[in-house]
């Protein structure tokens, strides 16, 4: 490579360059980016509510490509097509074709168009990626390692999605003494479970090391203080303590842990928790919840309104990389879900790292929310995709910045 620099110097001659050379890595224009997604988006109209959380997430990403900006309340504003792309074709639930907006305020995107195929199953997306039929697709975290081993180019974000166990169901109607007894029992059960669950094993075996064990409500990369909430595997004293706690509750039957029946990761984790609980002498069984993925309620942990489960698994994605903003959003979900009816402590507008730590400690000491693991967002990329960066919390797919390199082969593996 450096030998080639001699060519550069020869070109500029004895005057020594006065004009900057251009880089070979400067983005190139043109081409069609092929994207496959699992969700089926019924409408791109921001006013039309999505049927599932997965659809809502993808719809938000597509809308962010065709709308220039948001209102102060986070709603998309302006005309469709004012963003970096405009809709060229749309078939509800099947496909969308977006064309580059030549007059976009921040400059025309590098690719000419984006083709989005919807409703593709996870295994179909991986196969298409391996066959170079697609340039960008989402990969489930538990499949990331296998995909990389098969030669797929994988891009993962910082772990920003919390998989947690939350207690559900209210007891507002109960008498004061019954409520106190109930709360104490839930707290003891939560503490026993928290001590018994082997989070590291979930990360190592179920997630194939794509993720991090979670002890707190924020990941270490965001708060810098997650190490104060240990998430080590349970020790013998931990298991003994869990058994002791469980004996004090002496429930009449097994506790029921609900999980989203459409989420294979939740199912695996729920089954693992049942095994962990058994090792600590606790009676717990996992139960699939068919409607768990519908609407936004699942993400709030509002839980099983039917009352068939005592606790359920939730996946909460951070809305911002900033710890105070992300925690504020989590607290809103917690105090409207598992801690509904409990008075929230004051959370300052400009929260310090110590405020953030104390808020987490206050929630976790109730054991109504038991953090399990942090999950990254994982994407599979074709070799020609350049300048892609897995979006962090609150960020969009950076498809206006992505360009397609048809000349330079890019190494495979995890980025």
């Amino acid at each position, binding site marked *: 490579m450096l030998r080639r*620099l001699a060519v550069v110097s020869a070109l500029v001659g004895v005057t*020594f360059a006065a004009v900057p050379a251009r880089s070979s*890595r400067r983005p190139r224009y043109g081409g069609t980016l092929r994207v496959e997604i699992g969700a089926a988006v019924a409408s791109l109209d921001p006013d039309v509510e999505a049927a599932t959380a997965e659809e809502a997430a993808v719809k938000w990403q597509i809308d962010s490509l065709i709308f220039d900006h948001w209102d102060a309340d986070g709603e998309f504003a302006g005309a469709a097509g004012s963003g970096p792309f405009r809709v060229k074709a749309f078939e509800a639930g099947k496909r969308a074709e977006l064309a580059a907006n030549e*007059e976009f305020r921040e400059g025309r995107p590098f690719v000419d168009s984006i083709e989005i195929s919807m409703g593709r199953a996870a295994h179909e997306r991986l196969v298409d990626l391996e066959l170079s039929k697609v340039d960008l697709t989402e990969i489930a975290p538990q499949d990331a390692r296998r995909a990389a081993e098969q030669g797929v180019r994988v891009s993962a974000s910082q772990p920003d999605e919390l998989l947690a166990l939350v207690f559900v169901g209210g007891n507002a109607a109960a008498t004061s003494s019954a409520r106190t007894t109930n709360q104490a029992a839930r707290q003891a059960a939560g503490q026993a479970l928290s001590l018994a669950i082997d989070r590291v094993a979930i990360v190592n075996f179920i997630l194939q090391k794509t993720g991090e064990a979670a002890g707190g409500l924020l990941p270490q990369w965001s708060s*810098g203080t997650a190490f104060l909430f240990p998430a080590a595997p349970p020790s013998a004293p931990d298991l003994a303590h869990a058994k002791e706690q469980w004996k004090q509750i002496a429930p009449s039957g097994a506790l029921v842990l609900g999980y989203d029946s459409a989420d294979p990761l939740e199912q695996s984790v729920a089954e693992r928790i049942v095994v962990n609980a058994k090792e600590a002498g606790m009676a717990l069984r996992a139960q699939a919840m068919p409607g768990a993925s519908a609407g936004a309620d699942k993400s709030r942990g509002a839980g099983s309104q039917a009352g068939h489960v005592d606790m359920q698994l939730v996946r909460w994605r951070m809305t911002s990389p900033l710890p105070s903003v992300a925690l504020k959003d989590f607290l809103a979900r917690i105090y409207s879900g598992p801690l509904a009816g409990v008075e929230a402590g004051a959370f300052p507008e400009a929260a310090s790292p110590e405020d953030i730590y104390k808020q987490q400690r206050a929630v976790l000491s109730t054991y109504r929310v038991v953090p399990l693991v942090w999950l990254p967002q994982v994407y599979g990329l074709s070799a020609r995709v*350049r300048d892609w960066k897995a979006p962090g919390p609150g960020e969009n797919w950076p498809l206006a910045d992505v360009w397609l390199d048809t000349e330079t082969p890019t190494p495979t593996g995890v980025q």
Partner: protein
Amino acid sequence: MLRWRFANLFHDSRTLMRPSRGLPLRFHVTLVALFFIAVPFRTLGQISNPLPQPWNDAVRKLADKIAADVSPLKPLSLEVKNISPLSAAETLNVHGALADELRNRSFLLASPSIAAAESVTTAQVTVSQGADGYVLVAEIKSDSETKNEPQIAIVSAPKLAPSANQTSGEILLLQKRLIWQQPEKFLDFFVWPLGGSGSASLLAVLEPRRLAYYEFQDGGWRSSRSIPIPRPTYQPRNPDGFFEKDGTRLYLDGTACTGELAQPETVKCKGTGAYENPRTLPSTALEGVNVGQAVVFESPCEGHGAALETGTGDWTETDTIQGSQSTNDNFSESGAPIGTDGPVLTLVPGSVSGTARIVVHNLKTGEYEGYVVTATCSR
């Protein structure tokens, strides 16, 4: 929000502000003797504090919090652990500064051996990093409360590490100096030094839609003028723009500016309409040359040409500037590269031989930073 970062680009404060050296010989002898007596007995906490002010403030706050939680009547064992990207030397500096602050609050710091043998309070301080910046966390445990949860004290520290990234090379020694930093994207910058008539130093920052001027006054860059650059709605995503080497002209896609750039009041810019469709812009002016951006100049080492070259990664990655020197017809790497916290978006020859200007998109802070890179010959 604009702010200046480096005032003395062309003024060497070490020479300008140096006091008279006229000390009598006997003072020199005494000082040297004191130095050799004192150095072997210095302790960690007695090292002169090399931390920048914001870090000192953070350390002071943490010391205040520890002092509020612990009685100074009992010895305190201080341990500092680093789980952040801070270097060992920087961590040592934090440790030293904190030890100093605690001593100033009348704490008796126990050595680890004493701490193990006697009843002391332990403060384990962890230097960590979050999205907002560094954090200093103290876990304070009294020997009488070993079964209890430790008391926690947390303070936030700056986003940037205490010391700048500086690497020395063996042959071509590269150094970078931060000149300008702002949240908004800019393409290039240029500094006109102090004028002969006593006029102030002038900084011009070329943004895609304006040319901003700043004058150096009262120790900082003050905004003096902003010249809008009318742009068509149609523009490339990565507009190309830079000042020419001597600062007499600037180039910006689709725009023509007239007047003397060093005299802002004479400068006017207008869209030319001769705007190339970005699709037809060449991706590289030197097809087949598979390097990052590069500038070539006369080497500060005699008889050689020299080059500065960026890395070849994506604009989503950190970058490096590597120096090279020509021997015969070939360039070979010379000295160690210097790192940047984000991609180098612009690399252009500086106004002085052996220098270059770079614009970096700092991925940690999100800000755009302008540096002058200087290559000197290290023999």
